[in-house]
């Protein structure tokens, strides 16, 4: 994987090869696969994302009973035209909830980049495909863009909540989705980087503080903010709003912040929301014998 967004932008100009193609070729070289095999695999992943939304069950509850049914609530409100943020953003919120609730209920999802943040990328990409009618091939190209961004984040910082907190999971997912969204609207490498930078900047410092140590509270609802934030970052970028700090430097800042975070807010369930009065009460009530 690439370890610098600037490097991808540079090669895009020099080799006159688009961002997504560079990411694809680089991975094919690394894993000794053909372009065709790689494309087939990415299409499989995209289809699995679609299924993770389609297979949502309104009545499912997680093992702990904390999570389930919220995707259905939003669906109802979107359908009746009541969403304050409108139908499109409503459908983004709905999908983010559906996929991450399904994850909590032991259904099949695509970790992108992690299981805890699995709702963000599908919510953004699937909603944009529905809205604009992009082909599946085009959506796969957008997935390569997302993977390219995620790869750089993993290399410069981390995509693990246990290492760098939630900024490394929901933050990374949001950054990946923002770049992919901009690509779908004709953005080049610099635009992709701009959207990725804007998205992650908004989520820097986010703690990983899961109640009772489960991928449920607050993870499920944070997928919503990750997805919505990706869309706003894409819109800002497409309108010409520039991030003053370049993407690579934002990722490096995330790394430093992650290193400085206390262990109690890095997935240990000892701090933040997990350590609140209610968080502790929930933990006690679902304890295993």
């Amino acid at each position, binding site marked *: 994987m690439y370890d610098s967004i600037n490097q991808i932008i540079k090669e895009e100009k020099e080799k006159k090869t688009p961002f997504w193609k560079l990411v694809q070729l680089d991975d094919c070289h690394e894993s000794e696969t053909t372009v065709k095999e790689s494309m087939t695999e990415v299409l499989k992943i995209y289809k699995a994302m679609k299924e993770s939304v389609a297979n949502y069950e309104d009545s499912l509850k997680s*093992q702990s009973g904390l999570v389930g049914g919220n995707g259905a609530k939003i669906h109802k409100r979107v359908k009746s035209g009541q969403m304050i943020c409108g139908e499109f953003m409503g459908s983004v919120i709905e999908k983010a909830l559906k996929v991450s609730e399904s*994850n909590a209920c*032991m259904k*099949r999802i695509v970790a992108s980049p*992690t*299981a805890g943040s699995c709702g963000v990328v599908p919510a953004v990409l699937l909603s944009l495909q529905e809205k604009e009618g992009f082909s599946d091939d085009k959506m796969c190209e957008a997935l390569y863009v997302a993977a390219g961004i995620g*790869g750089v984040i*993993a290399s410069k910082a981390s995509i693990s909540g246990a290492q760098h907190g939630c900024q490394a999971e929901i933050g990374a997912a949001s950054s990946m989705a923002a770049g992919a969204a901009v690509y779908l609207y004709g953005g080049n490498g610099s635009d992709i980087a701009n959207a990725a930078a804007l998205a992650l900047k908004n989520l820097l410092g986010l703690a990983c503080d899961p109640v009772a140590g489960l991928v449920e509270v607050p993870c499920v609802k944070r997928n919503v903010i990750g997805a919505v934030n990706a869309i706003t970052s894409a819109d800002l970028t497409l309108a010409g709003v520039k991030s003053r700090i370049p993407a690579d430097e934002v990722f490096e800042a995330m790394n430093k912040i992650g290193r400085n975070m206390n262990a109690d807010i890095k997935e240990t369930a000892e701090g933040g929301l997990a350590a609140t009065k209610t968080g502790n009460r929930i933990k006690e009530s679902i304890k295993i014998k």
Partner: protein
Amino acid sequence: MNLFDIIGPVMIGPSSSHTAGAVKIGNVARRLLGEDVKKADIYFTGSFLSTGKGHGTDKAIVAGLLGLAVDDTDIPHSFELAEKRRMKFEIKAGEDVENHPNAVRMKLTGVTGRKIEVMGNSVGGGRIEICEIDGVETSFSAESPTLIIQNEDKPGYVAEIAPILVKEHVNIATMQLHRKKRGAVAVMVIECDQEIPESCIKALKKLNGVLEVAYLTMRGIE
């Protein structure tokens, strides 16, 4: 890390470490046993013990021992499946000193009576480490074809084993040597770039002083 570690894996939730990682550990233990599991004693420690139930770690490890893949929709029903396939299992709290936050020890008996004891850690993002086999410390990720050879702890085994692999054009990616104590049983863990042919494994088993050869194939594994 490759592209499909970032966009992927396709898996059953909720947690790459506590669910997908646990399935993988169970699956690798079963393949190390080399046959269907008849009886499994499973010992959880660390975060597997404290948050395992909420993450479905118990169902995931049983699913793995039954040979299910990380994206198999039967994972949540693995207990019922175990009953159907007559695999007995018990899940208990482990007594291991916490060497890793997500750890499990498995004592397995196969359908022909073969026994193995495997300990695995889930190290994040669905990646795992097998850290002990039959009481001897190991360290491998089970992401490439892996040979695990137990032999008498005497000089010369590396020199004898390497040519057998060379002859089949198998490239060694990593090689580790472990032992409990000097002169006792030694374990050689060899991670390879290519699959190792059956004939090669047979030849290794015939070597004087080689006590046990287990082979972890990647065939049929995504």
